[in-house]
């Protein structure tokens, strides 16, 4: 890593003021589980790193009217030890437990999980976020076994690595972003993530001088669950994730959201799958149909067609797991 200036302000206002309005000049440090590696890999070479560690109000989980408010620097371990989270949102707990590394759970934060950069090996090996060489896309014609099968028409072929993203989109969480002068704006989780079109864009709607400060999850009594297809049991990434949330009315599904992870540059809302589940009494057949619907429209690259089958299975199993809660 190159030398940089380090700031650890005590207030949010100060933190925001220390951020540049141009990407790459400054970076935000929370748990550091991604940023430190990114610095070492020279994926980013900031002049200044702004730590959120000393800003006490950014951490903690509180009941709020109609839901739960989570501070962005709450650690992943704190999140899944929380009673309300355990009771209301098993989909989050499964997603976090899947990370499989006590070290990452203890140091990693909720906000950091949502803002971490993609793991695309071309990106991490210095070929840029979109990994293009002139007109050529390195992953499209290269090693793309872990890349996107949805939303891959453009230049971005990486997958969003967030563990919490799919579950929070499915649960209709709302994120608070704080900018200069501590001006806040709120963004639905689904709109927080975006697919960059150029190298100078990033993977979320955050501006360079904004900080993701809070996450609000409405408590609506939704059945919810996450299923991750994982090979290695220890610290590793899932191949495919499915997070589901649905409401039951009189034994039938009245609304449903199915969100996939590790299949697209963003947590991928499988709208057709949600519709397929509505009005069904959840069972093996309905769950399998929902899984098939989720896989509709996938456009596998040369080396990742296997993910289509995994999507079907992950959705089916997540739906059944949610129904069992």
């Amino acid at each position, binding site marked *: 890593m*190159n030398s940089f200036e380090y700031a650890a302000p005590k207030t949010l206002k100060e933190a925001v003021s220390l951020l540049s309005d141009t990407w790459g000049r400054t970076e935000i440090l929370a748990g550091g589980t991604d940023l430190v590696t990114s610095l070492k890999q020279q994926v980013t070479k900031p002049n200044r790193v702004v730590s959120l560690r000393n800003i006490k109000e950014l951490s903690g989980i509180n009941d709020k009217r109609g839901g739960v408010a989570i501070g962005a620097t709450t650690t992943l371990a704190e999140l899944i030890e929380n009673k309300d989270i355990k009771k209301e949102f098993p989909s989050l707990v499964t997603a976090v437990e899947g990370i499989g590394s006590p070290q990452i759970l203890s140091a990693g934060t909720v906000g950091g999980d949502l803002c971490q950069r993609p793991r695309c*090996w*071309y990106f991490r*090996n210095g070929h840029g976020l979109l990994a293009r*060489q002139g007109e050529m896309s390195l992953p499209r014609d290269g090693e793309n076994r872990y890349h996107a099968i949805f939303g891959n028409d453009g230049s971005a072929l990486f997958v969003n690595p967030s563990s919490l993203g799919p579950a929070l989109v499915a649960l209709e969480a709302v994120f608070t972003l704080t900018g200069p002068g501590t001006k806040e704006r709120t963004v639905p989780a689904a709109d927080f993530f975006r697919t960059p079109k150029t190298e100078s864009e990033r993977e979320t709607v955050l501006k360079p001088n904004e900080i993701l400060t809070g996450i609000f999850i409405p408590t609506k009594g939704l059945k919810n669950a996450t299923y991750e297809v994982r090979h290695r*049991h220890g610290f590793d990434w899932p*191949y495919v994730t499915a997070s589901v949330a649905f409401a039951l009315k009189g034994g039938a599904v009245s609304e449903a959201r199915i969100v996939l992870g590790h299949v697209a540059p963003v947590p991928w809302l499988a709208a057709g799958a949600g519709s397929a589940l509505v009005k069904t009494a959840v069972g093996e057949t309905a769950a399998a149909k929902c899984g098939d619907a989720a896989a509709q429209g996938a456009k596998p690259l040369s080396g990742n067609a*296997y993910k289509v*089958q995994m999507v079907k299975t992950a959705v089916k199993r997540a739906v059944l797991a949610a129904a069992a809660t």
Partner: protein
Amino acid sequence: MAKTDWPVAEKRTLIGKRIDRADGPAKATGTAKYSYDLNKPGLLWAKLVTSPHPKAEIVGIDLSAAAALPGVKATWKDDLKEALYIGQIVAAVAAETEEIATEAARLVKVDYKPGEHLIKDTDPSASTGNPSKREVGNVDEAFPKSDVVHSGNYGCPVITHCCLEPHGQVTELKDGELYVWPSTQNVSRYADRLGESVDVPQNKIHVECQYMGGGFGSKFGYDKWGTIGALLSKQTGQPVKLMLDRDLELMTAGNRPSAFAKVKIGATKDGVINAIDTEVWGTGGTGGFNAPTVPYVFTKIPNTRITGKGIRTNRGGQRAWRAPNHPQGCFITMSAFADLAAELKMDEMEFLLKNLQFTERPEFDAPKVYAEELKIAADLIGYKQKAHPRSDKTPGPLKRGLGVSIHTWAGAGHASECDVTINPDGSVEARIGTQDLGVGTRTVIAQVVADTLGLPLEVVKVLIGRNDYPQSGPSGGSTTIGGISVSSRQAATTALNTLLESASKRLGVAADALEANGGTIREAGKPTNKISWKDACALLGPNPVTKRGVNVPGESAKAKLTSSGVGGAQIADVSVDIETGVVTLNELVAVQDCGLIVNLKLAESQVFGALIMGTTSALFEEAIYDSRTGQMLNADMEFYRLAGIKDVGKLKVHMMTGPGYDDRGVIGLGEPPVISPAAAIANAVANACGVRVPNLPLTPDRVLAALSQKGGIA
């Protein structure tokens, strides 16, 4: 007089017992210092500059910007004209901190003229040079006589050693003497020619390696980084630490060649193999390629032919990887056997037993021993209860299956010298220029010496890991335990005999009639006529007794102190989730012989480690390269996956001991048990889900792809 022969079972006090690793506490608490841990006063950090091109002419190297960075103390550049792979070393810097060195390395300007490169190793037509060919009998005449012929393709990718402690060393050139603390498998001979580049003669080179974190065949020489460390230290007069970063460790410090094979195998309808024809190709990167032996173990099959084709690619060069070529040959052979057995509708185990007549080992009834080992393995895993024909018909997505494999290895002791000193106060010291790769070499030497002298373990102090101790061979080929146990046994025996001579006058009987036992020297057959060990040693007068023991390989084999040729059988029990392609190892059973076992606990521990490493190669490991850029994409421990504790299932180890095994002398064990896991696991997967997943590692994408082919369950 005491004799060098190994004691019979009832006379062994320490040999053959379960004894804890002597350096376990030091390692667990962190007091054991590895090369990486050595921070000497004035230490400089070195970083390497490596080629970013898979093939390029090196036009020029400009060190000036790097040298000008404050904190940089020394620079070095190679006179290399051409880089042949990404990660090839071209220059180096040494600086006051690791961070400055890293930054300086980036400031080195290298002018490259990139050329055409080749990465892909899966196409045999890309091979250059003449294929190797070997034929026994006549394959073409034999196949028409086969009742069933199976053809299949099987492949193992390039994998790396991925040593947890990377390659490298701390070097200090001071007052004309060169001190090196490397991570090495070869303490005695590590530095043979290291001094040439810095004009230091061999007698002024001091090598020390007390602990090392894995080598697996990749840490025999001082390598380029050894020379660079010496040169940088010479420039500065300061100690220099040069350890490879993880990416370089995976790209440049060795790998295991790939092996892809097309196999045709025929048998009569009763399941006896009559012919096997194999074409095998693969890459050793910039290094050579030797075709693995197929058929493996079953070398007496009457008609066999193998054609080998090496593909030279722009990747780092291969090095010996724990049992070189055996795991690949084993995987290809056992896979083809299991597939043929399935076509014959024959149980895999029955098929192997039927063909054991084709196995051979020197001076050894191979078919009998393999049959015995297979039977024990079958009992341990419950083969009779669990075995089913290929394809588990149980409803639901989880399919379970068993797979079997057998393997062999040589493992006779290497040349080794050891000095044992008995001090007048009764304390004992063993000095030997060997190394402990983490397997328990120290412990074993102490056991042999203490057992020989009739003493408790803690009386013996063991000194290893320095090149000024009596020289002992490199730890390769599983030759260490045979070498060091013979040399230390011999040294201890000879030293003891001197002591017995002095004691004989006191006890009034000839030295011939005396023995060391339970901390005493006593008359054999008349234990009351004795003297304590301490008193006996005091009789030596002021001077300690030091005697040298030497293991001369051919001679010790004749005397059955060590010998060659071990074998083992393994059975895997796996579950395959056919809806996700995820393979889970439920259980892996290993039965292994290795002659006289010095420490049963450490031997089992060695097998456990091998099973985990073998399982890793079966399920996770693959060096993934991008063809266009030539880059290794997973030169990290994120996507270069190793098995963790939850991935390895239940491991059961059974060591063969007793008559027929003990009397073969001490034989090495490091390599053999790593050979079979991938073969057994791959066969278990085929048995579970009904289709062959032809290529390792058995990742979900490969399993799903195989299942979607005709014949799969899904």
